[in-house]
């Protein structure tokens, strides 16, 4: 699954650690999600969407 996490993070000048802290997950988790190697669960996807004030489909797209 593709995602815009890196772009959204860059827009806010957040590091992976910053985003991880806001989501209450590890930096490794953010890295794995961002690089598309790990697909987050629905609750985590909702949490990410809420943090950026966007809908899930505006952040995550099918390959």
């Amino acid at each position, binding site marked *: 699954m593709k995602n815009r996490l890196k772009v959204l*993070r860059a827009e806010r000048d*957040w*590091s992976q*650690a910053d985003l991880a802290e806001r989501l209450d997950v*590890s930096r*490794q988790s953010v890295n794995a999600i961002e690089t598309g*190697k790990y697909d987050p669960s629905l609750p*985590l996807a909702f949490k990410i969407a809420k943090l950026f004030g966007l809908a899930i489909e505006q952040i995550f797209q099918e390959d």
Partner: protein
Amino acid sequence: MIATKNDFDRPTRRFTGGYLLGLGGLGLASAAFVAACSYLKRQHADTIVLVGVAAAYGLVILALTTYCSRMVRRAGRLNPSAAAKRYRMRFMVAITVYVVALIGSLSAVIQYHLIGLVAYVLAITPALPLLAAIASMGVYLHEETDEFERAMQAEAALWASGGLLAVETVWGFLELFGLVPHIQTWWAFAIWCFLLAPGRLLALRRYC
């Protein structure tokens, strides 16, 4: 390419080195322990010497585990979750109790030539903290709120379980044909724990 600050790198050489050092060190320490025990047995050494060797082995294992896990955490710039910290603490306490229980039970049974129910109870005593260590892993998976960490730990456990089954199966047949010595089944937990480290490394390599 979007530039963002402090991006997480792939596991570094130091990171892998920490795992390999831990794994190699544990293997070497265990081999030295087994060799020392078998030598001392042939020499009919005093119980106190055997207990001393077992205590030294326990201390080496504890020191090596602590050093290598610290090295891996620093190299990977990992910030363990509260659940992971609790798990490590429980596991280390269980292993420390195990070492003490093993030394105590062994020396009591050998020293006083205990038999019957007391011997059974003392024989099972060292297994109890190991059961607690196994349970602490289950508790960790339940308590971990970071789903990625949980998935990685579960994958590492699957790799370790598969590896253990492979090792036991191959060894069993080698033993059946009289090509290798018998291994006592309590080694299964130790082997599984050894295999957790490469299992986690494989999981990390896949995702990071």
